[in-house]
């Protein structure tokens, strides 16, 4: 067991080391001292402000990763998180800004609308898959593009308020629909309060989503059926799991979580869906899910790693070091992590079989062949 866990940790460590190695090469090639660069990054990232900023960055990445991971659990690829969260944020922002409600309920309504719209948007792909056999990867890619048009159409024609500025946006969320920041946590633990960056309160909801995800996948019947259909569809069917239902439910849940990706920024900072609402979180979320191997904690670490790299990249720029090097690290680490996992998984499996067959040699009809 310990060996197994050890090997599971070896994979990301090796991959990350490799990625850093590539980055070192890249830095050396442009004449930068890598040690100095990494030193700067580390120093900069360890201030309270940076910590708050890193967490703020990692929260939407984490939520997006969870959305992707839930699909991964049954080998279902929701590549449309990007479109789902943007469409969801638009409608949630519009609804939230258009109604007046008592504080916690207002936030709740916004969250529910976002989750609902995200689920519907993803559900289209799920429905097409179970009824018409349309591959979900292609369907969600198409839905991403269609979603962008939907946003432009609605924001441009219906939802936008004339704020005087050039930036079109949905009506601003009243204070009752905003989530207050959490900077007091820093002072509570005796650290300096972050300057200018408000630790977004949505982080708590993100943690809840993470816990919920973990519980759902590992502690509930549904999660068990989900994983079973991912691991062995044949066995799952024999166990009474309806594959079509699972696909649809999984897509809905994944889309629902995806719908909440943009909320941390919207409820904690922008207070509206604006035309420069953050993009690309869906795709980055896929990377984080891969990095964290669909594990609730692992993905949190992955998201923090991405947040750390993006935040600390700022200091590189200030020191005239090409900050794009962090993007290389991100790309290489994702690719090498998946390769490392694949290799390690194979080693672990073969070793497990070997030890077991050694132990029970006497009473077996031969070791089981691996046909994964």
């Amino acid at each position, binding site marked *: 067991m310990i060996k197994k866990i050890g090997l599971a940790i070896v994979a990301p460590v090796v991959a990350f080391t490799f990625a850093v190695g590539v980055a070192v090469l890249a830095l050396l090639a442009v004449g930068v001292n890598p040690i100095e660069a990494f030193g700067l990054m580390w120093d900069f990232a360890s201030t309270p402000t940076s910590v708050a900023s890193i967490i703020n960055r990692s929260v939407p990445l984490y939520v997006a990763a969870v959305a992707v991971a839930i699909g991964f659990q049954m080998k279902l690829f929701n590549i449309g998180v990007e479109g789902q969260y943007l469409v969801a944020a638009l409608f949630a922002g519009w609804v939230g800004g258009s109604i007046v409600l008592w504080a916690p309920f207002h936030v709740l309504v916004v969250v529910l609308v976002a989750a609902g719209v995200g689920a519907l948007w993803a559900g289209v792909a799920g429905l097409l898959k179970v009824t018409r056999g349309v591959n979900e990867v292609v369907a969600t890619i198409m839905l991403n593009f269609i979603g962008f048009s939907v946003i432009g159409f609605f924001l441009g024609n219906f939802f936008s308020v004339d704020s005087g*500025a050039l930036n079109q946006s949905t009506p601003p969320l009243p204070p009752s629909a905003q989530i207050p920041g959490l900077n007091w946590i820093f002072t509570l633990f005796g650290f300096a309060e972050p300057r200018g960056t408000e630790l977004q309160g949505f982080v708590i909801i993100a943690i809840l989503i993470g816990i919920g995800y973990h519980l759902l996948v590992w502690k509930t019947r549904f999660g068990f059926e989900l994983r079973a259909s991912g691991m062995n569809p044949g066995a799952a069917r024999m166990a009474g799991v309806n594959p079509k239902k699972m696909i649809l439910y999984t897509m809905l849940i994944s889309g629902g979580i995806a719908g909440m990706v943009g909320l941390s920024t919207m409820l904690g900072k922008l207070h509206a869906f604006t035309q420069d609402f953050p993009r690309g979180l869906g795709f980055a979320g896929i990377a984080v899910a891969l990095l964290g191997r669909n594990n609730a904690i692992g993905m949190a670490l992955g998201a923090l790693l991405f947040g750390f790299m993006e935040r600390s990249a*700022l200091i590189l720029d200030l020191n005239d070091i090409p900050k794009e090097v962090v993007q290389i690290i991100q790309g290489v680490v994702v690719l090498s992590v998946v390769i490392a996992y694949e290799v390690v998984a194979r080693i672990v499996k073969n070793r497990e079989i070997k030890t077991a067959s050694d132990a029970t040699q006497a009473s077996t009809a031969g070791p089981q062949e691996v046909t994964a």
Partner: protein
Amino acid sequence: MRSELKRRGRFLALLFVFALVAAACGNGGDETTATTEASTAETTTTTTEASTAETTTTTTEAPKPGEGVKVGMAYDIGGRGDKSFNDSAAAGLDRAVAELGVDATELEPTAGGEDREENLRLLAEDGNDVIFGIGFAFADSIAAAAADFPDTNFAIIDSVVDAPNVASLVFAEHEGSALVGAAAALKTQTNTIGFIGGVAGLGLIEKFQAGYEFGAKQVNPDVEILVQYLTEFPDFAGFNDPAKGKEAALAMYEAGADVVYHAAGGSGAGLFEAAKETSENTGSKVWAIGVDSDQYNTVGEEVREYILTSMLKRVDVAVFSTTENFVLHGQQSGIVVFNLEVDGVGYSTSGGFIDDITDQLEELRLKIISGELEVPSE
């Protein structure tokens, strides 16, 4: 075992290729630096000569007034080298460094631009005295940062932020566009001109369009104006898709337009390609009009001769004069409009293609400055 080795070999080869590529880049950069430095130096001097006749007199003494003043600049997406908006700001900064002796620190956002506010704060914490946010997207960020750093002077381009330590530098793009519109309408042989906008639905680009149409109609009421936007919000690709820019331009030239003006950021490159291609294919010259900076000087030499003029949005002037004012007078705030009157917007004459009509353009310019004509902004 052998296949294992082969596999490993392949992987190493890949790594090697990567290293080579990276190394090649490093070398390439160095080589080209030397050769092109001279040419950029030239262009900067020409632009400064053209535009700073009134303002430069005070700042040529030996001990530069801005020694010790730190200026920070946070670019918008695209950053230095975008051959457009950001580059214009950079030119202003370079000039301030050269003439005022200030220290400059520059930051660029990530591709998505989410870190604008953090860049501002970083610059503030870094001890910069004046910090520029280049672009309207900085509005919220500057408002927030300015509140936290009351002793730092901020400046935003293209938007208005109401705070005691923020200078809002806005441009009358519609006025500048009116002049190039007039130039287009005067130069057209076919009585048809065109306008290509990058992204529709933002409001910003529509301002350019309105001015352009107004100016054209002023000098030639019968002129036909074709309008085409490349994408609609939220698809920002329209600012970055030269392929689509080119096709839209080709369509306009084909439809009879012989002068086309763009406000499409990076997609404008496609317009210039289209102008060249159409001119060469049809044998009759068609024109393109650049935007923001003097694009005659920033595009490749092959397409230079098709750039009739450019609508200058003197972000460089705004950056420089704001810096200079800070150096000389301290804290700056309030709205500063850079219009025709203060040469904040204008048109370029590089290439000498509009020398024959500058009189008429000047006449129109004076009318606008005097208030005789009011250019609509939407």
